[in-house]
């Protein structure tokens, strides 16, 4: 564990795509840390590097420079097998699309990461999560029989089930109507408040960002703002200023 209690620490991260004249710097020296039990939103215009930052933090992409320490482990040098183990043990994911396996039921989808890792679920915790996401009567339904919001709530439950060090959410509301969006965000908020879960979310939706404890904003691969998000209106105002 990091000395100041931060669960993820990024130091001087840079990421360059391509070579020579065509090279693009998606990240140009980003350093930041994420506190345990905090809900962070990452925003920024298209091409700002917000997704790249999240991907690198989650070990899905490798930086061209700098390091990432996740729950006390330096992850930038890990090989595929070690990264797979890291994802099983310490990470949870919620994506925008294709979050669930269409061939499994809602409950089976929640249990999927544990099944993949060959672990037994904590039954009590599972029941509590299913109640929390409000899908007690939908557990044997297949994704095709669920609404978009319900599917995304299954995905959140799946991410929380292994009690990971961090849950990464990549545009979790990008594909949802506003009512379903609100439900999913409330759920993530609840996870942070009730279970002490650390959540890092990339979004372009100011309303989503308003649910977070902390908002960081990227632009041209650099960190340009770091603070409390305030209300959705505040976030919109902030974005305007940064433009």
């Amino acid at each position: 564990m990091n000395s100041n209690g931060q669960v993820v620490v990024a130091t001087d991260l840079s990421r360059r795509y391509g070579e020579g004249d065509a090279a693009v710097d998606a990240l140009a020296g980003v350093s930041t840390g994420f506190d345990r039990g905090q809900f962070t939103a990452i925003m920024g215009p298209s091409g700002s590097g917000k997704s790249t930052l999240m991907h690198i933090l989650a070990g899905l992409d490798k930086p061209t420079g700098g390091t990432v320490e996740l729950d006390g482990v330096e992850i930038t040098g890990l090989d595929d097998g070690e990264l797979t183990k890291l994802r099983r043990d310490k990470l949870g994911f919620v994506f925008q699309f294709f979050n669930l396996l269409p061939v499994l039921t809602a409950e089976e989808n929640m249990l999927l990461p544990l099944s993949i890792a060959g672990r037994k679920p904590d039954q009590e915790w599972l029941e509590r999560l299913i109640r929390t996401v409000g899908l007690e009567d939908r557990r044997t339904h297949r994704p095709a029989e669920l609404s978009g919001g319900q599917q995304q709530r299954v995905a959140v439950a799946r991410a929380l089930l292994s009690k990971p060090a961090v849950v990464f959410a990549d545009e979790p509301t990008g594909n949802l109507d506003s009512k379903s969006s609100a439900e999913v965000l409330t759920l993530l908020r609840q996870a942070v408040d009730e279970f002490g879960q650390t959540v890092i979310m990339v979004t372009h939706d100011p309303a989503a960002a308003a649910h977070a404890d902390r908002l960081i904003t990227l632009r041209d691969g650099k960190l340009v703002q770091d603070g409390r998000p305030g209300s959705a209106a505040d976030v919109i105002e902030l974005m305007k200023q940064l433009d």
Partner: protein
Amino acid sequence: MTSLALKSLWARKVRALTTIFAVVIGVAFVSGSYILTDTIFAAFDEIFSESLSGTSVVITAENPVEQDNGEIPTVSASLLPRIQQTPGVKVAAGAIFTPGGFFDAKGEKIGSKFSPKFISSTLPGSLESLTYVKGHRPRGPTEASIDEAAAESSDLKLGETIELVGQGRVRGFKLIGFTHLGSASFGGASIAQVTLPVAQALTHKLGRFDQISVAAADGVAPETLKRRIDRQMPAGVRVETAQENADRGSEEIRDNLSFLQTFLLVFGFIAVFVGSFLIFNTFSITVAQRISEFGMLRTLGSSRRQILTSVLVEALAIGLIGALVGIAGGFLIALLLNGLFEAIGIDLPTTSLVLESRTVIVALLVGLVVTLVSSTVPALRSTRVPPIAALHAFQPPPSRRRRLVYAVLSVLLGLAGLAMVLAGLFGSGDAGARAGLMGGGAVIVVIAVSLFSPRLVPPLAAVAGWPLERVRRLIGRLARENAQRNPSRTAVTAAALMIGVALVTFVAVFAAGLKGTVAQVIDENFAGGLVIQNSDGFSPIPNGTAAAASKVPGVEQVATIRSAQAKLLEGGRPGAGARVSAPTSNVEETVKIEWKQGGPAALRGLTDRQAILSDSFASDHGLQLGDRFRLLTQTRSRPTYEVVGEFDAKLGVFGSVLVTQASLAREFRQTQDTIDFVKTAPGADAAQVQALLTKGVELAFPTAEVLNQAELKESREEQINQLVNLIFALLGLAVLVSVFGIANTLALSIHERTRELGMLRAIGMSRRQVRTMIRYEAVITALIGAILGMVLGVIFAALIAQPLKDEGFTLSYPIGELIAVLVVAALAGVVAAIPPARRASRLNTLEALQYE
């Protein structure tokens, strides 16, 4: 639109490669079959013309009835002086060219097991076709030469002793020369040459020739000479120019080997048929994946016809490329097939490979037609894409009604196919037409099953996946669910393997039945006896073998059976073929005959003008006790026989007509035994008698072998196994195509599931788990095909066996072999999964997640 089609093909060239490959294999097999058989024909043509290069006119006996062992009737030596005195004849001589056996000084067989071996006589002057590469022509009664290739393969040296056996006792000769005939390999056939009197003595053809060769004097045309000689020849003698003789030889070879061409082509078209499933599936999947592309084209104003054309042009391009590459691959297949035949001991003569224009035309047609036909349904589906599909990949699932229509259609189609098979099986008429009906019916049944099988995929996947789910709960479950996700896709993929497995099962079950039946017949009928047969299993054994055997201590009796082919004269014209057997009157001492009419007395008292018929032959030709019938024999004799008995045809050793050996000798000029049965004296030790017999008989007649009951069964089984293994090897290519089909479908499905795979990797699935999941999916697909194929194969075998029941055929199921087939199918799945599993496990998680 055409250029768009070709561009889009080019853009997806890697995926197109597997489709092209399916066309290539089928076309290569078809054109390879043609190339090989054309090459064999060309080689024979070369042999015929080479061997007649210095000859103008050839005199042979007419051959009204073909014999199983290819023996032809002889002409009398008394014709020779008349020919020699004909004006315009420079030189004329009689020749012997008769099958025999060769052995080296150690008694080892020279040449491969099934290659024909001929004893030939020397010819004077330009008539001689063999050239001597070493040594000289045999000049005395103790000298012999042999062809270079045989000498090389058995490492023979000049001055050594070789043994030759024709129709009598084996004789030793001093090897004094190595010969060579033209440029073609003689098909592994060996020729030993001795002087004419020696050749006649060896083959028991004293006073007779296989042919008389004539060289014309300078300035005399072969045609003129032929007419002059022909005028002096009696009926039944054929006079031909060398050219005519060579042409007839070529034609007869083509007739005799056309079965080989048909046999190989059948397997070629099986590979094409299997390939069509792969092509259909690839086009269906790519059309489905390109829905939004077609929608976009429609919004831009493309007509349905244009979309259809673009897909069909793509198909034609694939067919054309596949056919062209397939023709080139045909050369490789021809060499492979030749190697396969050599490996099982059948040497076919070859020269440089021959590509006829017919081969090119058929190959192109096969390639184009199969791709066009297989892509038509997917192409039509592409035209039904509405413009709105450009916006979201919208794929209307097949409606309940359409699924019901498919199911009803497939059941009707299956019944129609089954009816065709049954009509072919039990109907009357031409054997070729019936085989065609059965084959066509089988193809329709296969198509019907594959149409219906989407409904069978879920339960079969559950069965096939069960053990995998036991081993790896989640991974097995996911693999099974993935296989079930698109049942029709899995069904078509599995159907390709189903065809191969059905054929393998059919052959295995049928062969097992055949072996079981043969074993049963041997057990029931030759209890305790010993059998003497030719070691190749089908040729006759030399004269004198039985006499030698009966002198061995412990032998009580020897019964012999001789046989020949004849034709039944129907209204004075030669009609149905009949296999005539002539047993000695004591045959019932060693072989059990089930009498329907008459009885043992009829056989013991059989006169040379009487015959006993098999019950099936009698009923086929409406012959009853006391009726008379006439046969046409190979020597143009037309003997009349009176029916005095009927026996059950179940027993394989007898043909359809039994006559006396004296009659067979006189009317058919056949004096060699096909098989001898030995009854040991009571109290004699069978093993000891066999040892004595082996020593006494095999030494003097090395082509003969003495077998006890178990060995006889083994020898028959071995013959069946050899054919079965050949068929399995030929079906291997069809199975290979279906393995490619599984790999291709998986690759396309994985492509569709890219983002899903990314998600699985992101939430902790390891590369190994991804590979295992895809491997299991392939194994499940393969097992679905194998199970369906096995059921079909067993049903077909049971059907085909039905009419054979009367002849004593009983079906048996080789459980061990069938399990092995399932295991091999599962392994085929594992192999098919290697490339797609590799690709899936190597997917970059991040890119996969962002994949549109």
